[in-house]
């Protein structure tokens, strides 16, 4: 099990405070910069390892950054604090995005990112809760995160805890039926302490979702299952913050976050081949320039 990095955790606390106190436009800019730093770190990591899922990592990073730097009640130095909010990354193949975010928050030392996918590294191609603090359950096969998160939300209610459960879903993985079993349970039980965020980048491994097995109208689907649904720009940190911190109703919340796969790197954006293509050193350098803007 990796351990917390107190210096980075302290920096994370300061940045969180600065973000919380900043005027809206400054707040957006701080989150944008932070997310792009994680994007750059992620690309470095993937380039070094020679594998990863860059497209989905880039699309989900604004969501993860907003959650960890503006929303989640967690403590990187006490990752097992019982009343912490839970963040489950159901789209486990984008482990790189989670690792770069957790490292930036000090759950473990950022230097560990260099071990990604190396023999015996804690940082496997899909996240492992037994090895990586901040990972709540092992994911990788699709369609697993929502049922487990429903269980966590039921537990939070039984324990009369204020904690909130967030689960980040890929859009493609919604083709797995297990999600809809869990969506039904959450709607039926009116789990208001559960928020599902759909990283709606409209691309799956091989093609567009709508050309493969259409998901739209996705908002109506979740509504029909008994959820409150919000559709936002998944790269607009203020919209994400607003929806995550808005007063909650009596039903589970689904945030459909419209995103662009490969976001932030011009030659990767909305291109299916960047699902898990590995960038060259030159491409990583080009990307770094774009992300530093």
């Amino acid at each position, binding site marked *: 099990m990796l351990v917390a990095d107190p210096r980075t955790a302290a920096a994370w606390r300061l940045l969180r405070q600065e973000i919380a106190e900043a005027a809206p436009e400054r707040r957006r800019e701080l989150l944008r910069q932070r997310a792009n730093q994680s994007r750059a770190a992620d690309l470095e990591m993937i380039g070094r390892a020679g594998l990863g899922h860059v497209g989905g990592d880039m699309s989900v990073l604004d969501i993860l950054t907003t959650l960890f730097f503006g929303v989640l009640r967690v403590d990187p130095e006490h990752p097992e604090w019982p009343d912490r909010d839970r963040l489950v990354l159901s789209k486990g193949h984008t482990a790189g995005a989670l690792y770069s975010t957790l490292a930036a928050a000090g759950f473990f030392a950022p230097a560990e990112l260099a071990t990604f996918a190396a023999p015996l590294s804690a940082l496997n191609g899909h996240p492992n*809760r037994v090895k990586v603090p901040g990972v709540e*359950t*092992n994911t990788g096969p699709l369609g697993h995160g929502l049922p*487990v998160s429903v269980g966590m939300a039921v537990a939070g209610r039984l324990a009369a805890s204020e904690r909130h459960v967030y689960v980040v879903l890929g859009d493609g993985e919604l083709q797995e039926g297990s999600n809809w079993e869990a969506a039904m349970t959450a709607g039926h039980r009116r789990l208001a302490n559960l928020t599902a965020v759909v990283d709606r980048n409209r691309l799956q491994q091989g093609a567009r979702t709508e050309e493969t097995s259409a998901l739209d109208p996705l908002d109506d689907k979740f509504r029909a299952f008994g959820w409150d649904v919000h559709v936002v720009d998944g790269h607009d940190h203020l919209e994400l913050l607003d929806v995550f911190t808005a007063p909650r109703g009596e039903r589970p919340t689904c945030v459909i976050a419209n995103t662009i796969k490969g976001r932030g790197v011009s030659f990767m954006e909305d291109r299916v081949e960047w699902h898990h293509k590995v960038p060259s050193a030159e491409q990583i350098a080009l990307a770094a320039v774009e992300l530093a803007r």
Partner: protein
Amino acid sequence: MSFLTQETFDCRVAFADELIALAKQDERIVAVCNDSVGSSNLVGFQQEFPDRLINVGIAEQDMVGVGAGLALSGYIPFVCGASPFLTGRALEQIKADVAYSQSPVVLCGMSPGMAYGELGPTHHSIEDLSWLRAIAGLGIVVPADPDETRAAVRWAAAAATPVFLRIGRFKVPAVTDSFTFGTAGLLRDGTDITVVATGTMVSRALEAAAEAADQGVSIRVLNMSTIAPLDEQAVLAAARETRGIVTAEEATTTGGLGAAVAAVVVSSPSPVKMRMLGVHREFAPTGNTDFLLEHFGLTAADIRAAAVELAHV
């Protein structure tokens, strides 16, 4: 003497009684089920603890995932469903969400084996032991009678480890006096042949041993109620001290008890011949459980015949 004419018991009753008793003492205990409140015998639990019975409906993948989420949040979930659907439908959740995630869920496979008789192979759970034994870190316990069921439930609630309990519906007599996870129960000592049996086959193995004694064959009976991890020492001792081993299980022989014992025996310093009784990769014909156990050679007479034959090889 015939054990099968003695009073027999549905182990689901002992399971439910013990679960309620434990839940009264420990509020972390919850039950999760798939519309199986009745068939998992959870009616009493639901009356006693309505908030702690989470019925997700007919949705096994969701059920196991929900159980994992509860376990990862400090609860002790007993996730109950008919064994064929719990294990077959949710196998990947059992692997990823429970075993690999090390979430201490107690998976309760109800009415396993061929308990559903005439309902047919869709409802038989004879593959479960093979499937689950292939998963790292998952304990597999098959109690042989009501007392052992109670003891296994008590153990599982305290164990804080992923485990599968196979809870029988087909009625069995009381044959055990203790349960220790990972340890075979020596129910009868013998010097010629060892019968290693599990679940519904244990009482039949004892009956076979009593009858074989009349034919001059001395049979040791091991109740292998823990299939994983297997009590290898008990198997090695049997290979050393007796001349052959018969395994008996209400399951396929492809990867369950027989295969587990054989893997130990072939690499032991004193390998002995074996006979593996069970279902040999076949779908059952129509018939009730008694008929099917007879059809597949799983009666006391079949066990005795296999042991006597082996003793004379």
